[in-house]
C-alpha cells in the first residue's frame, strides 16, 4: 500500500494550521483545497487573489477571476484582489505562512528543483522562485521517483534549481520526510511501506 493522490492531499492539508495564509502550487497541490474544512485557512493565488474559493458553478465562471494556473475560480466572502507587485510583496515579505508546491527534485539539504528539465522544453519560472524563497514554510508534494524509476529525492539536485535550502517537508506516495543535513528524516511511512523500500527509491540517506 502507498498513499493515493487523495491521501497525499489529505496529509498535506494536515500541515495547514488554522487561520494560516496558504499558497497552493499548480498540479498535485491544488487537490489540497478539497480537504480543508470551510473557514480553516485563507488561500492566496499569486496573480492577485486572497480568499480564493472553489471552482465556480457552471454558468457562473468569470474570465477575469482566475488562479495562477489560469483556471476559473471564485472568491470567498472576506477575499480581496490586488495587483501583481503587491501580491509578490506579500510573498517576499514573509506574509505567506505556507506554500505547498510540486517538485521534480528535492535534495537532502532542502534544495528545490521544480521549473525546468535539462534538455526539455523551457516552461518558464512563473512564481515558483518567489514562492520558494519567500514563503515562511515550504512543503512539497511529489511522486517519490520518476516513472522510469529515477530518484527524485536526491543528495544533490541535477535539474535547474528553484531555490536552495528551502524545503521543510516532502510528502510522497511512500510517506512524509524532512530533508535535513544531508538525509531525509522519516516523519511517517505510508501504510505497509517499509523503510528498506523507501531507501531503495531514494538517492540520499534515509534516517
Amino acid at each position: 500500500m502507498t498513499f493515493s493522490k487523495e491521501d497525499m492531499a489529505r496529509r498535506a492539508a494536515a500541515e495547514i494550521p488554522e487561520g494560516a495564509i496558504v499558497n497552493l502550487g499548480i498540479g498535485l497541490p491544488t487537490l489540497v483545497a478539497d480537504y480543508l474544512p470551510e473557514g480553516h485557512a485563507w488561500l492566496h493565488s499569486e496573480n492577485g487573489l486572497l480568499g480564493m474559493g472553489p471552482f465556480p458553478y457552471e454558468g457562473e465562471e468569470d474570465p477575469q477571476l482566475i488562479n495562477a494556473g489560469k483556471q476559473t475560480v471564485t472568491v470567498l466572502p472576506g477575499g480581496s484582489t490586488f495587483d501583481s507587485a503587491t501580491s509578490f510583496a506579500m510573498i517576499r515579505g514573509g506574509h505567506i505562512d505556507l506554500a505547498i508546491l510540486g517538485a521534480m527534485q528535492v535534495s537532502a539539504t532542502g534544495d528545490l528543483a521544480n521549473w525546468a528539465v535539462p534538455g526539455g522544453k523551457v516552461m518558464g519560472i512563473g512564481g515558483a522562485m518567489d514562492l520558494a524563497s519567500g514563503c515562511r514554510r515550504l512543503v512539497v508534494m511529489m511522486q517519490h521517483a520518476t516513472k522510469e524509476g529515477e530518484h527524485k529525492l536526491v543528495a544533490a539536485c541535477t535539474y535547474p534549481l528553484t531555490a536552495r535550502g528551502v524545503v521543510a517537508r516532502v510528502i510522497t506516495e511512500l510517506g512524509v520526510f524532512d530533508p535535513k543535513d544531508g538525509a531525509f528524516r522519516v516523519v511517517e511511512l505510508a501504510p505497509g511501506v517499509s523503510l528498506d523500500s523507501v531507501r531503495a527509491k531514494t538517492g540520499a540517506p534515509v534516517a
Partner: protein
Amino acid sequence: MIGKHKDKVAPSIEAALEPLRDGMTIMVGGFGLSGNPEALIRGVVARGVRGLTLVSNNAGNLGKGLATWLHAGIVKKVICSYIGNNDDLHTRMASGEVEVEITPQGTLAERMRAAGAGIPAFYTPTGVGTIVEKGKETRVFDGKTYLLERALRADVALVRGRKADHFGNLRFWRTGRNFAPAMASAAALTIAEVDELVPNGAIDPDDVHLPGLYVHRIVEVREHENPFEYRTVRKR
C-alpha cells in the same frame, strides 16, 4: 508628458495607438488570456509597427492574445515569466526569430514597480543560487544573500480596465488587475482600454485602483471576447 493630462479620451483604437513606433518596448497587462486589452492588441498588429520588445507575463497562449503579435512577426524580443504551452513562442524561441528573457514573476512585477517609483535597482532573495543569479551582483544583509535586479522601463504600456473616468482614474475587475498598475507606472506612455468610460467624479476617490496621472490615453471598448484559457467548473 508635461502638460499632457488633458483630452485623454481617444476616438478610436487607431488614434489611441498613433504614438507607437518601430523598435519600441511595450508592456502589455493581462495574465495569460485573462484581462487582456484585446482591441489594443489587435490594433498594434493593424498599425504595422515592427521590431518590438514585448514585456508581458505570458506573451499569449492558444494562438490568441499576444500570440497574434508572434504570428505577425512584429516581436524581436520577449521579456516574460512563463511560457508554458505557448507553442507560438516555443517555436520562435527555438528558431532564434525571437529572443526570450525569462524572469521570476515577482521580480518582473517589482522591476516595473521600481522603475515607476524612481528606484534604479533593488536587492531580492528570489533567484539566489539559481540560473537567475548569473551575471548579477550579490550582497549579504543580516546573514542572508540577495541579488541585485535592475528596474525595467518601457516606452508604452497597454492595459485593460473595467472603468475609467476622463482623467484616467482606473478601476479593474477581479484578477484582471495583475501587472497593469506596475506597467502603467513604468511606461512613458500608458494607453488604457476600458469597458466603460464615466465622467470625472463618477468614481469615488477612495475607490480608484490606479490614479489618472499614470494614464495618458483612454479608449472605450464595450465588446470583448474575454476567452477562457482553462474553464474549470463544479457541478451543482
